[in-house]
C-alpha cells in the first residue's frame, strides 16, 4: 500500500478515536479530503522542482508509533541546551514526555497542543488561530488531518517569556519506520517577547519522516526569536512548514541551522500584515554525503514601511544537494519596502550541487529590494594567506568556512546557543581549530 493510501485509510480509525465536539473536528475532516485529492507533491509542482519525496515516502511508516518508549535525561542531555535554564516541551515518538519537560501556566502558557485542543479554556485561542495562516497545501492538510500533539505557546499581552523555550521531538526507533506530524502554535500578544529553539532528533538509524507545521502570530510590537536546529541522523527526513503572521512594529526572526539529516525541506513563510515590521530569515547549511537541504522561503510585503532580511549560507560537500528558492512579493500598496536577500554557497566537492533561485515580484514603485546569489569555491588567496602563517590546509579551509558562515552565527541572540552551534559547525567541518570559536 502506498503511504498516501495508508494515511487516508488510517485517518478513518483516527477520526473514530476523537471527540466530535473538538473545535477542529471538521477542520481535520476537510483536511484529509484535501490531502486525498492532492496527494504528495511531485517534481511537477513548481515549488518542488528540485526536491523529490519519492524515496522518502517509500518506507512502511508507522503512522501511530508506539509511544511507550521512555528516555533517561542523562542519555539525551546533549540534545538540550543544558547549560541554560529553559522551558522544555519534549515528545518521544510523538507522545508528550512530562518527565523530560518543564512547562508552565504562570502568566504564559507553555504546554502541549493536546491540552490546547481538548481543554475548553483554550478553545477561544484555538478558534482564532489554529490553521488560520497555513495555506491549503497537501502537506499542510495532511498535518492538519492528524493534528493532535505538538507545542502550544501563548505569551499574552505585555508578557515576556522569562527564559527560552526548547521544543524537542525525539524518535527512538521503536518502530522500523516512524512518521511524525507535530503541530505547533505560537501566539505572541501585543508587546510580548519569546525565544524558542526547536529540534527534531532521531536516536537510531531507523527511517523517520517528520511533517511538521508551526504557526506563529506576532501581535503589535511583539518580538519572536526562533531557532531551528536540524542536525539529525542520516535516515531522518524533515519537512518543516512554518508560517508567520506579523502585525505593526513586530520583529520576528527565524534562524535555521541545517547540519544533518537525509532530506530537509524548510517551507518558511512570512506575511507582513502591518507597518514597520522587520522579518529576519537566516540560515546556515553544512552538509555532505548524499544529504539534501531545501530552503523555500517567502516574504509577503503587504503593507508599507516594512523590512525583510534574508541571509542564507550553504557549504556543500560530497554528493550533497542544496536548494534555495527565495520569494519576495511586494504588493502595490507596500511602498517604502526594504527587502534584502542573499544566498551564498560554497561547493567543496565538484559533485555537490546547489540550485539557487531568487524570485522577486514587485508591484510597488518606491521600494528598495536587493538580492544576491553566489556559488563558488573557497577563496584561494585567503587560503594561501592562512597557510603562509603556518596553518595547515585542512584547518585553514575550516577556518574560512567558519568565517563564511559567521554572518549568520553572529546574530544568534542566546550566547549558550551560539556557542553550541559554533561547536557543532566546527565538528561538522572536522577540525578543532585550537581556540574557542
Amino acid at each position: 500500500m502506498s503511504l498516501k493510501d495508508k494515511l487516508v485509510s488510517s485517518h478513518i480509525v483516527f477520526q473514530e478515536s476523537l471527540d466530535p465536539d473538538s473545535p477542529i473536528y471538521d477542520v481535520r475532516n476537510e483536511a484529509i479530503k484535501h490531502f486525498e485529492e492532492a496527494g504528495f507533491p511531485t517534481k511537477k509542482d513548481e515549488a518542488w522542482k528540485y526536491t523529490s519525496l519519492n524515496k522518502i515516502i517509500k518506507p512502511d511508516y508507522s503512522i501511530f508509533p508506539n509511544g511507550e518508549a521512555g528516555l533517561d535525561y542523562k542519555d539525551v542531555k546533549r540534545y538540550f541546551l543544558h547549560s541554560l535554564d529553559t522551558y522544555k516541551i519534549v515528545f518521544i515518538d510523538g507522545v508528550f514526555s512530562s518527565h523530560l519537560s518543564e512547562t508552565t501556566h504562570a502568566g504564559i502558557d507553555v504546554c502541549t497542543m493536546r491540552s490546547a485542543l481538548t481543554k475548553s479554556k483554550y478553545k477561544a485561542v484555538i478558534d482564532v488561530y489554529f490553521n488560520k495562516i497555513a495555506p491549503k497545501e497537501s502537506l499542510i492538510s495532511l498535518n492538519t488531518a492528524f493534528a493532535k500533539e505538538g507545542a502550544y505557546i501563548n505569551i499574552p499581552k505585555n508578557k515576556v517569556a522569562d527564559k527560552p523555550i526548547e521544543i524537542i521531538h525525539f524518535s527512538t526507533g521503536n518502530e522500523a519506520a516512524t512518521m511524525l506530524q507535530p503541530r505547533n502554535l505560537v501566539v505572541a500578544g501585543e508587546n510580548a517577547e519569546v525565544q524558542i529553539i526547536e529540534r527534531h532528533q532521531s536516536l537510531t538509524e531507523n527511517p523517520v519522516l517528520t511533517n511538521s507545521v508551526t504557526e506563529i502570530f506576532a501581535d503589535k510590537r511583539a518580538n519572536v526569536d526562533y531557532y531551528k536546529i536540524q542536525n539529525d541522523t542520516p535516515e531522518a527526513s524533515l519537512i518543516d512548514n512554518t508560517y508567520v503572521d506579523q502585525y505593526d512594529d513586530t520583529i520576528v526572526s527565524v534562524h535555521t541551522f541545517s547540519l544533518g539529516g537525509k532530506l530537509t525541506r524548510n517551507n518558511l513563510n512570512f506575511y507582513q500584515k502591518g507597518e514597520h515590521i522587520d522579518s529576519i530569515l537566516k540560515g546556515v547549511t553544512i552538509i555532505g554525503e548524499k544529504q539534501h537541504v531545501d530552503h523555500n522561503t517567502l516574504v509577503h510585503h503587504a503593507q508599507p514601511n516594512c523590512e525583510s532580511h534574508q541571509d542564507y549560507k550553504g557549504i556543500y560537500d560530497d554528493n550533497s544537494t542544496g536548494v534555495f528558492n527565495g520569494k519576495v512579493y511586494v504588493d502595490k500598496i507596500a511602498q517604502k519596502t526594504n527587502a534584502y536577500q542573499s544566498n551564498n554557497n560554497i561547493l567543496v566537492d565538484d559533485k555537490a550541487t546547489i540550485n539557487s533561485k531568487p524570485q522577486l515580484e514587485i508591484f510597488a514603485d518606491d521600494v528598495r529590494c536587493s538580492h544576491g546569489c553566489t556559488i563558488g569555491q573557497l577563496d584561494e588567496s585567503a587560503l594561501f594567506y592562512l597557510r603562509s602563517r603556518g596553518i595547515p590546509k585542512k584547518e585553514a579551509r575550516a577556518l574560512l568556512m567558519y568565517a563564511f558562515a559567521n554572518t549568520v552565527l553572529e546574530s544568534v541572540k542566546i550566547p549558550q546557543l551560539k556557542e553550541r552551534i559554533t561547536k557543532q559547525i566546527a565538528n561538522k567541518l572536522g577540525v578543532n581549530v585550537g581556540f574557542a570559536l
Partner: protein
Amino acid sequence: MLKVNNLRAGIEEKEILKGINLEIKAGEVHAIMGPNGSGKSTLSSVIAGKEEYEVLDGDILLNGESILEMDPEERAHEGVFLSFQYPVEIPGVTVTNFIKTAINESRKARGLEDMPASDMLKMIREKSELLEIDRKFLSRSLNEGFSGGEKKRNEIFQMAMLEPKLSILDETDSGLDIDALRIVANGVNKLRSEDNAVLVITHYQRLLEYIVPDVVHVLVDGKIVKTGGKELALELEEKGYDWIKAELA
C-alpha cells in the same frame, strides 16, 4: 639563509621570473626594487609557496635545503614569513585567536606543546606595544574593516609574534602614511637580528630610508639587472627606472 638559484617561474604558461639568482645571509637586509610588472610580487609569492605559480627551473634553498617541494604551511614552519601587500579579511576570527592558532600550529609541527596561555598573553602584549597596537584592535576580526595602515601594522605584528628566519615584506609601504610607515619600519628594525634576514620588496625608495638595506637589487622583466649598495635605491629614485632600462638597451 636564502639562496635562489636560476629561478624560472610563471603562471599559466607565462614565464614571469626568467632566471633569478639571489643570496641573502643571516643578519642582512636586501631590497628588491623594480617597476610594475617586473615580477617582484611573483618572486615573493613563489618563495612563500603560492600554488598557482609554477616553478619551471632552478631552486630555492633555505639554510641549504630546498623548499620547493614544501607546502606554504611547511615553509612557514621552517621560518619563512610573507607580509602581504593585500592582507585577506577573515570575518569572525579575531586577531588574537588567529595568531594563537598560527603559533600553536607551528609549534605542533615542531613537536612542541601549545604555548602556555600566560606566555602567549605576555608576548602579545609586548609585540603589540612594539607596533603601537591598541588592545581593542586585537579583539577585532582579522583585517575586517582595517585601514591600510592597520592592515600593514597587523602584518608586522604577526611577523613579530611568529619570529621568522626570513621575512619578505611585499610592498609594505603601499597605503601607509608617514606615521604608520615609521611605526612599521621601527617594528621591523627592532626585530632584526644576526639570526634572521629581511627581504624588502618595494617600488619606491621611501621605505628604505627607514629600513636601511645592505644590498639593493633591481628587478626588470623577471631578471635582476643590477645589484648595489643602499645608494642604488637613491639613484633609482632620482633617475627613475627608465635609466636602467636605457642602460640595458
